[in-house]
């Protein structure tokens, strides 16, 4: 572990997500002395604590002179102790805010990082609690499963497929983490129907050390000889457990279109819809509500008995080529088409084009 030149690791540092293990983190806290050999003062280990079982030796050398003899030296026997194991764990939420879901909806994922902030390998059992107060609904266990472990093949939660993440089964695949190692955990939920837009559903993820008697014990609780190499096992400030609450919000996105004839100019300069008249159509595409509409695409066949006026297409006031090319609109197969992709609400687009009456 590189010893950085930061003096004391007193501040909690938010772990930044990385695709591999070994996310740097710090630990902080003040604990109450419970047993001898476990007096904890408000100074806390930096980054990776010394590995449990390490023998720490102090050796002192005295140089001196006596009478006519100088540069004499004597070295002490080592004073040693063994680094005990400390159990600590953290859970942080990786979602910037409530995760948007529909109502009803399936398999919405909340993302957490589980980190072993102790100094030896430990395993942790996970559980979720959806019956929390202060929200509008209780998230349901996801159809694909309730808790998943990121398997490292593809960022983000995948319920299935070749990169499908690993369904968590308590006692069967409790995450085993080395000192300072992290794992991404997903809480996956279905959303009940008939919820209004803005409804909040909270879910709590809990991680507890699988060491018998450790989870929830007072900081400083010591299990003699239970650590690696016969070191003691000491419960750290996190009490060998961690919880984190995150939430979903029901988003409602409504996409609507409104098509009008903006102008009619006939061959005499009037405004009758007659053969040869030039019609200007306007289509308003509206994405309203909250959340994101995915793959918003317009496909508007021109009316029967009309002919599209070449190069009359514009989107949001900017002309577009008729050809199917890199801009987001074209005239193809007798239809005016525009592709707005994933669109966050609220968004408004205006598509215009002209036709002549046959």
């Amino acid at each position, binding site marked *: 572990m590189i010893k950085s*030149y930061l003096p004391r690791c007193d501040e909690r540092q938010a772990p930044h997500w990385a695709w591999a293990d070994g996310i740097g983190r710090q630990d902080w806290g003040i604990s109450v002395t419970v047993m001898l*050999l476990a007096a*904890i003062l408000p100074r806390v280990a930096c980054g990776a604590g010394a590995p449990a079982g390490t023998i720490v030796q102090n050796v002192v050398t005295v*140089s*001196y*002179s*006596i009478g006519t003899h100088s540069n004499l030296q004597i070295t002490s026997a080592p004073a040693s*102790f*063994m680094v005990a194991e*400390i159990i600590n764990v953290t859970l942080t939420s990786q979602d910037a805010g409530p995760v948007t879901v529909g109502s009803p909806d399936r398999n919405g994922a909340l993302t957490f990082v589980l980190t072993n902030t102790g100094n030896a390998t430990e395993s942790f059992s996970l559980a979720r609690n959806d019956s929390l107060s202060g929200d509008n609904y209780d998230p349901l266990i996801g159809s694909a499963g309730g808790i998943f472990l990121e398997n490292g093949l593809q960022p983000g939660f995948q319920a299935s497929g070749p990169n499908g993440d690993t369904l968590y089964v308590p006692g069967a695949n409790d995450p085993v983490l080395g000192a300072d190692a992290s794992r991404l955990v997903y809480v996956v939920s279905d959303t009940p129907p008939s919820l209004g837009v803005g409804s909040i559903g909270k879910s709590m993820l809990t991680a507890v050390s699988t060491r018998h008697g450790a989870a929830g014990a007072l900081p400083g609780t010591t299990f003699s000889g239970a650590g690696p190499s016969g070191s003691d096992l000491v419960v750290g400030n996190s009490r060998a457990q961690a919880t984190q609450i995150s939430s979903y919000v029901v988003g409602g996105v409504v996409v609507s279109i409104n098509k009008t004839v903006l102008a009619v100019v006939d061959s005499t300069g009037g405004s009758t819809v007659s053969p040869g008249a030039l019609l200007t159509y306007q289509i308003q595409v509206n994405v309203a509500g909250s959340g994101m509409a995915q793959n918003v695409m317009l496909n508007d066949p021109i009316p029967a008995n009309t002919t599209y006026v070449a190069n009359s297409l514009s989107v949001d006031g900017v002309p577009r080529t008729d050809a199917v090319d890199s801009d987001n609109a074209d005239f193809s197969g007798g239809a005016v088409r525009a592709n707005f992709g994933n669109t966050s609400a609220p968004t408004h687009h205006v598509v215009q084009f002209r036709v002549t009456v046959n």
Partner: protein
Amino acid sequence: MYILFILSLLIPLAATAGTPQQAPIVVRTVVEAEVPVKSAQGKIEKKRIPVSKAPPGNEVIYTTTFTNQGDKPAGNIAIINPIPAHTTYLSGTVFGDNTEVTYSSDGGKTYAAPEQLRIKTPDGRERQALPSEYTHIRWIYKGDLAVAKVGTVGFRAVVN
């Protein structure tokens, strides 16, 4: 010829007569922790106990005693203590009566007062070293250590 050969083997033993046969200075270092203990009257007191196991975050006290058990005063006494690996020196905790203390931040090559200690930053510049970056502590004992006298020095560190 053989007699000369045997004599030459004996001579090296005689040549050591000039140097002290046993070290007149004895040095001992211990590691302890300070723990609150309830006295018989129910008061919480601090007691020092030897440490055999300590988790990261715990504070330990290193105490070194040096004793003159020779028959002449000892002088030019310098005590050098590398900060043990996996621990960090706690600023301001050094102790040692009748000594001058300097520190090293370069692996024991040079010693100086805190204001003069330097560390190279990643971009190649220099800045003052922090106490947590000290690599060694050195005490210079002032004057002589009289026969049968004991000197005591030490410091506190936290387990990484």
